[in-house]
C-alpha cells in the first residue's frame, strides 16, 4: 500500500506524545508538558507543509486500507476503509487545529503552572489533539464517527479535570450524555446511508447520492437521513435543543474552553455537515427540506444564545453563549447552501482564531483577579496592556468591524442569505450581529475599562500566555484577507460545494426506475443491477458554470448595514457601560419577568430536569418494576418450582433397596404394557 501523502503522520504525532507521556512520563511536571508541546509543534509544521501542498494541488487524495467488508442480506454490502483524506477542507482544519492546539499548549505552560495535575492535563490535551486531527482527516463516516466519540471522551476528561469540584463532575457528565443523544441520531443516519448506498466514503457518497430514490427505501426520504446526520451536529456543535452542555462546560480550565469549546471540537459538527453536504444538497430534491431545517435551527440558536449572553455576569459564560451564537451562524450559513457553504467554513476558520483569543484573554483576566465574575473586574487594560489590547482586537473581530477577520466572514454569510432571498433569516442574522457587538463590548468595558476594584493586584501574565494572545490577535486581524481573490484563487475557490453535474438527471432516472420496479427499491442488489443495466441517461449540462467565483466580493448593500449595526452595538455598549446613559440594573428591573427568563437561560435546563424526573424516571420506574417482578419473578418462580419438584421427588429416595426393586418391577410392567399397545 502506497501513501500519496504524509497526512497520516499528523494525527500520530500528538498521539505519540500522549503515549510517551503516558508510558514514560511518570507525571513529571517538566518533561510531560514540553514533550506534548514539541509533538504538537511538529504536527503544526507538517500540517503547514501539507497545506502548502494542497494550495498547489487541491484535488482530494485518499489513502486508505480496507478494514471491514460486509456483504450479506442482513447487514448490507459495503466496505469500511481506514485512512486519510487530504483536500482543502481537511488541510484547513489541520492547520487550524494544530495551530490553536499549539498556542493553547504554550499558554497552558503559564496558566496551569500551579495546578497539581499538570502532567495529566497535557496528556489529555495531546489525546484530544490526536482525536480531533483524526476526525478531520477521516475519509469516511465510520472512521469519523470513531474519532467523533473519541473527541467527546476527551472533552469529558478535560471538562472534569478539576476532579474535586462537584460542578465540574456534573458538567462533564452532562456534556457526554447530551452529546450521546445527538450521536445516536448521527449513527442512525450513518447506518441508513451506508446500508442503502453501499458506501460511507465521502467522495462516493457525493457521486452516488443521486441514486437515492432507487437505492433508498420508499419510506425514508433522503431529507430524513440528512436530518439524522444533522443530529450529531446539533449535539456536538451545541445547537438548540442540545446546547445545554456548552455553558456548563466552562467549569473546565480556560485553555480547555479555548481549544475545545470554542475553536475545534464544537466546530466538528459544522465540519461534518460540510463534508457530507452532498446529502443535504440532494435532500432539496426529496420530500423533507433538510437544509431549511438546518438553517432555521442555526438561526434560532444564534438569536437565542445572543440574548442570553447579554445578561450573564460570568465572563466565561458570556463567551460560551457567544460561541453558541457564532456556531448558530455557521449552521445557518450551511443551511442556506451555495455560497453559504464557503461562508460557513470561512466563519469556522476565522472564529477559531478570535474566539480562542477571547478565551485565552479571559483566562488571563481570571488569572489576575482570581474570579470569573465581571463585577469583580475592571480597568484591567491599564494593569495588563497586552491582554487588554488583544482582547479588544478579538472583540472588534467578532463584531464584524473592518479590517478584522469577522467582517469578511460575517459579510459572506449575509451575502449568502441575500443571494438565497431568505429575508427573515437575513433579518435575524443582522439582529444577532447587533447583539453580538453589544454584549461583547459590554464584556470589554466591564472587564477592561472603568474603575478597578479595591484589592486590585492584577499584573500582566508571563510571555507563555501573552505570546499566543499576540499571535491570535495578528491572525484575527489578517485572516479575513484570505477570502479575497488572488489571480482566481481565494478561500472560496478551494473550499466550496459544487453540486454534482449529474445530480438532477440521476435523481430523475432513479425515480423513474423506482416507479417501474417498486420491488427493487431499497434492495441494494436489485437496485445496482437495474441501475447498471440501463443505458446511462445523456449527461446533463454542468450545474456550476465554469469560473464561478466564491471569493469575497464587497457588496455595499450588505456590508454597510452590517457594519452600521455592529457600530451601533458598540456605541450602545459604550454608552451604557462607560458613559452610564442608563443604569443596566434599572433596565433589568423594568423588564422584570422577561429579564429573569433570559437570565435563567429560558429555563431550558429546568425543563429538561422536569422531563427527566417526571417522564423518564417514571418510565424507567415502570420498566424496573417489570424487570424486578415479572422477569425476575419468572426466574425465581422457576427456581421455586424446581425446588418444590425436587422436594417432592426426594421422597422417592427412601434409601431402601426393596422400594427401588418394586419401582423397577413397576417400570417393567409399564414397558410391557407400552409394548403391548404399540406393537400388538
Amino acid at each position, binding site marked *: 500500500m502506497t501513501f500519496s501523502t504524509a497526512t497520516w503522520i499528523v494525527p500520530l504525532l500528538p498521539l505519540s506524545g500522549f503515549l510517551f507521556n503516558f508510558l514514560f512520563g511518570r507525571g513529571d511536571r517538566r518533561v510531560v508538558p514540553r514533550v506534548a508541546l514539541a509533538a504538537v509543534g511538529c504536527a503544526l509544521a507538517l500540517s503547514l507543509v501539507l497545506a502548502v501542498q494542497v494550495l498547489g494541488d487541491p484535488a482530494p487524495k485518499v489513502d486508505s486500507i480496507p478494514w471491514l467488508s460486509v456483504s450479506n442480506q442482513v447487514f448490507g454490502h459495503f466496505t469500511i476503509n481506514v485512512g486519510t483524506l487530504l483536500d482543502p477542507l481537511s488541510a484547513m482544519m489541520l492547520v487550524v487545529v494544530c495551530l490553536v492546539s499549539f498556542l493553547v499548549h504554550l499558554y497552558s505552560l503559564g496558566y496551569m503552572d500551579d495546578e497539581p495535575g499538570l502532567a495529566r492535563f497535557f496528556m489529555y490535551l495531546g489525546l484530544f489533539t490526536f482525536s480531533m486531527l483524526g476526525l478531520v482527516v477521516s475519509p469516511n463516516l465510520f472512521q469519523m464517527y470513531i474519532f467523533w466519540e473519541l473527541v467527546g471522551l476527551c472533552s469529558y476528561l478535560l471538562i472534569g479535570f478539576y476532579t474535586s469540584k462537584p460542578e465540574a463532575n456534573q458538567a462533564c457528565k452532562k456534556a457526554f450524555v447530551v452529546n450521546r443523544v445527538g450521536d445516536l441520531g448521527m449513527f442512525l443516519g450513518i447506518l441508513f446511508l451506508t446500508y442503502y448506498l453501499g458506501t460511507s466514503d465521502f467522495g462516493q457518497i457525493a457521486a452516488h447520492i443521486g441514486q437515492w430514490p432507487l437505492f433508498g427505501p420508499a419510506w425514508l426520504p433522503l431529507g430524513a437521513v440528512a436530518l439524522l446526520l444533522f443530529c450529531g451536529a446539533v449535539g456536538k456543535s451545541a445547537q438548540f435543543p442540545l446546547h445545554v452542555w456548552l455553558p456548563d462546560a466552562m467549569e473546565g480550565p480556560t485553555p480547555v474552553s479555548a481549544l475545545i469549546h470554542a475553536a475545534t471540537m464544537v466546530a466538528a459538527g459544522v465540519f461534518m455537515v460540510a463534508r457530507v453536504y452532498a446529502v443535504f444538497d440532494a435532500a432539496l430534491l426529496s420530500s423533507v427540506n433538510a437544509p431549511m431545517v438546518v438553517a432555521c435551527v442555526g438561526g434560532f440558536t444564534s438569536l437565542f444564545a445572543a440574548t442570553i449572553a447579554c445578561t450573564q455576569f460570568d465572563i466565561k459564560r458570556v463567551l460560551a453563549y457567544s460561541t453558541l451564537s457564532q456556531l448558530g451562524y455557521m449552521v445557518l450559513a450551511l443551511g442556506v447552501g451555495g455560497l453559504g457553504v464557503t461562508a460557513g467554513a470561512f466563519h469556522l476558520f476565522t472564529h477559531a482564531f478570535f474566539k480562542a483569543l477571547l478565551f485565552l484573554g479571559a483566562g488571563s483576566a481570571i488569572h489576575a483577579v482570581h474570579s470569573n465574575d465581571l463585577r469583580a473586574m475592571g480597568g484591567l487594560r491599564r494593569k495588563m496592556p497586552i491582554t487588554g489590547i488583544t482582547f479588544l482586537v478579538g472583540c472588534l473581530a467578532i463584531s464584524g468591524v473592518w479590517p478584522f477577520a469577522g467582517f469578511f466572514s460575517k459579510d459572506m454569510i449575509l451575502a449568502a442569505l441575500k443571494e438565497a432571498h431568505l429575508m427573515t433569516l437575513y433579518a435575524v442574522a443582522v439582529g444577532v450581529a447587533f447583539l453580538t457587538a453589544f454584549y461583547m463590548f459590554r464584556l470589554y468595558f466591564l472587564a477592561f475599562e472603568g474603575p478597578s476594584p479595591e484589592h486590585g493586584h492584577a499584573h500582566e501574565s508571563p510571555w507563555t500566555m501573552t505570546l499566543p494572545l499576540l499571535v491570535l490577535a495578528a491572525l484575527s486581524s489578517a485572516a479575513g484577507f484570505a477570502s479575497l481573490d488572488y489571480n482566481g484563487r481565494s478561500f472560496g475557490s478551494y473550499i466550496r460545494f459544487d453540486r454534482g453535474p449529474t445530480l438532477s438527471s440521476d435523481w430523475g432516472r432513479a425515480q423513474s426506475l423506482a416507479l417501474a420496479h417498486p420491488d427493487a427499491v431499497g434492495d441494494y442488489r436489485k437496485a445496482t443491477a437495474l441501475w447498471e443495466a440501463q443505458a446511462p441517461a445523456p449527461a446533463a449540462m454542468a450545474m456550476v458554470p465554469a469560473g464561478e467565483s466564491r471569493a469575497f466580493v464587497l457588496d455595499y448593500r450588505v456590508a454597510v448595514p452590517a457594519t452600521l449595526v455592529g457600530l451601533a452595538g458598540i456605541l450602545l455598549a459604550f454608552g451604557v457601560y462607560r458613559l452610564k446613559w442608563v443604569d443596566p440594573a434599572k433596565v433589568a428591573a423594568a423588564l422584570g419577568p422577561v429579564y429573569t427568563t433570559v437570565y435563567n437561560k429560558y429555563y431550558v435546563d429546568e425543563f429538561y430536569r422536569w422531563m427527566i424526573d417526571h417522564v423518564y424516571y417514571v418510565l424507567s420506574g415502570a420498566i424496573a418494576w417489570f424487570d424486578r417482578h415479572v422477569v425476575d419473578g419468572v426466574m425465581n418462580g422457576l427456581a421455586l418450582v424446581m425446588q418444590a419438584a425436587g422436594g417432592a421427588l*426426594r421422597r422417592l429416595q427412601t434409601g431402601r433397596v426393596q422400594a427401588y426393586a418394586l419401582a423397577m418391577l413397576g417400570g417393567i410392567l409399564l414397558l410391557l404394557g407400552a409394548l403391548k399397545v404399540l406393537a400388538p
Partner: protein
Amino acid sequence: MIPGVPLQDFLLLSAALFCVGLYGVVTRRNAVGVLMGLELMFNAANINLVAFNTYLHAGALSGQMFTLFTITIAAAEATVGLALVVSIFRARRSVRLEHVDLLKG
C-alpha cells in the same frame, strides 16, 4: 417328557414361583428373608431351563448344563450375600432392612 403334562404347565409353575419369590424380595423385613426370596427366583428360572431342555431340545443337554452352572453361581452368590448380611448385623446390631437406608435423599 412327562406324559399328559404340556410344557405350559411347567412354565406356569416357574412363573408362579418367580412372582412369589419377587414378592418376598420386595416385602421381607429381614435381610435373610430377602435372600430366600431370591433363591426362589433362581429356582424358578432353573425349572424353565430344564423344562425347555426336555420338551424342545430332546436329544441335547444344553438346558441342564445351564442349570448346573446357575446352581453353582447362585450358591456362590448366596455365600457372599450372607457374609454381607452377617457383617452388617455386626456393624448395626440389626438385620432389619428399613434400618439400612444411608442413601436416603
